[in-house]
């Protein structure tokens, strides 16, 4: 049984079927990519899986447990974490604090202890700081640790979100366009990072427009078009699928995101 499994998932916005009857599974250590033209419903699918939207139809299970429509924090407790396409950074915190907050589930404790700064409370914060510093080093942001998060570049913020998501020690990680807006070097760094994380046994679900990256690192690809799954399989199989090619060319008329 896959770690994350999605069956028949769908949602409507004002009578419009934004996503309909989408299903797939993700195993530990696997990288599954969701691709499709703009407006295909990729981010909506992510939002349903991660609890931001409540799906109208279908089922999401995590390790066999039905988690459909659970709040994001309940999913976090079950080891699901994510990043956001349009960045959801804690702007007014320092870079380090952002990642420390990502460690919330391990760092939290009694509120009273936090109010009076008991040794236990300080110990929890110190542990979070140590882990967070390590993660910042891993994504190459250790030198920016004390800066205010809002001062970072777009690419750096993307990496910061990944570090924050990793602080949770997730079993499954949803990454929504982690390489968008990054230059070639940064993209390659993220590329390695994702592969690395997957290798440690984390299941990864990825939405990405950079087809080179998708083809290179995905173990499995799901293709969406107008809210429906039109193809699924290994990268080389999907890239030859006529339906996929048509979906892309038909919508985008050969613009930047054609299949590599």
């Amino acid at each position, binding site marked *: 049984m896959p770690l994350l499994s999605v069956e028949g998932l769908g949602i409507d916005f004002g009578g419009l079927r934004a996503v309909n009857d989408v299903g797939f599974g993700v195993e530990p250590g696997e990288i599954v990519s969701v691709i499709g033209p703009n407006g295909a419903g990729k981010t909506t699918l992510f*939002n349903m899986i991660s609890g*931001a*939207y409540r799906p109208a139809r279908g089922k999401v299970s995590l390790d066999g447990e039905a988690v459909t429509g659970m709040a994001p924090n309940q999913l976090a407790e079950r080891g699901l974490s994510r990043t956001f*396409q*349009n960045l959801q950074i804690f702007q007014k915190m320092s870079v380090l604090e952002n990642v420390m907050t990502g460690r919330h589930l391990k760092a939290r404790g009694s509120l009273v202890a936090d109010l009076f700064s008991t040794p236990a409370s300080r110990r929890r914060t110190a542990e979070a700081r140590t882990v967070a510093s390590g993660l910042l080093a891993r994504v190459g942001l250790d030198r920016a640790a004390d800066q205010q998060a809002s001062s970072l570049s777009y690419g750096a913020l993307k990496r910061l979100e990944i570090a924050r998501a990793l602080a949770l020690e997730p079993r499954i990680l949803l990454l929504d366009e982690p390489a968008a807006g990054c230059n070639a070097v940064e993209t390659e760094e993220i590329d390695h990072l994702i592969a690395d994380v997957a290798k440690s046994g984390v299941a990864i679900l990825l939405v990405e427009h950079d087809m080179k990256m998708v083809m290179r690192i995905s173990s499995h690809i799901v293709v969406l078009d107008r809210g429906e799954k039109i193809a699924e399989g290994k990268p080389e199989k999907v890239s030859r699928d006529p339906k996929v090619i048509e979906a892309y060319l038909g919508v985008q008329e050969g613009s930047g995101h054609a299949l590599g």
Partner: protein
Amino acid sequence: MTELLQYLVSGTTVGAAYALVALGFTIIYNASDVVNFAQGEFVMLGGMVTFFAWQAGVPLPLAALLAIVAAAVIGVLLNKLAIERAGAAPVVSLIIITIGASIFLRGGAQLVFDKQLHRFPGFSGDEPMNVGGVTILPQGLWVVAVAVMVFVLLYVFFTRTLTGKAILATANNRVAAKLVGINTDYMMSLSFALSAAIGALAGILMTPISLTSYDLGVPFALKGFAAAMLGGMGVPVGALVGGLLLGLIEALTAGLVSSTYKDAVAFIVILVVLFWMPQGLFGRKSMERV
């Protein structure tokens, strides 16, 4: 039975005044996402300017027009000098700015005018009409008629005219509105002027009924704000229904239950409505985009 009708007449009159204030809130909110807590001061200015002009010998209709224009000008100034400069400040900052404006205008009115209560005669006299044992003031009819008329005009304005739609677009997405060629600064000023004018109109209409003074803006702002939120902020029909509902709840509670806690009942109703409908009665449900 006549008692009940009398309560309804009272509630409708006062409720129509709340509705006018709430409509004022709605217009500015629609253009800028700002809830203007200085809205009550426009109500005050309407009454005070009209009274002092009238006392100086200006005929009442002209005095009222003068007050509306004066309020509109102050509304535009408020937008140009404060709101526009604040930009995309958080909700609390905007609350403080508009409350600051309210305190400023009240302080100014106290200096320019005076601290006494004032009144001028009703538009169609002060002789009440008796309809089957129920007393109706002609001025009360004026208030209700104008509130309904303003609502209809606003409804047409926002749904049928290009300018009205441009104001809505400005609120929805300032940048996009600019890109499609809407002069967003002008739309903001226009909506402040419109809102201030409607507030002043409410003040002018109510002065023969409930008197005016430099400090009656706050109670009107509170009730108008509550009415707008009850109906759903930003929706004209919500403002109208919210205002009338608030006035009716107050009058019926005072008449049938307890005059001591009529305001309390009004706020409890608001809390209960918001519990079931967090966007108010007619508010649009918004979905957070992530």
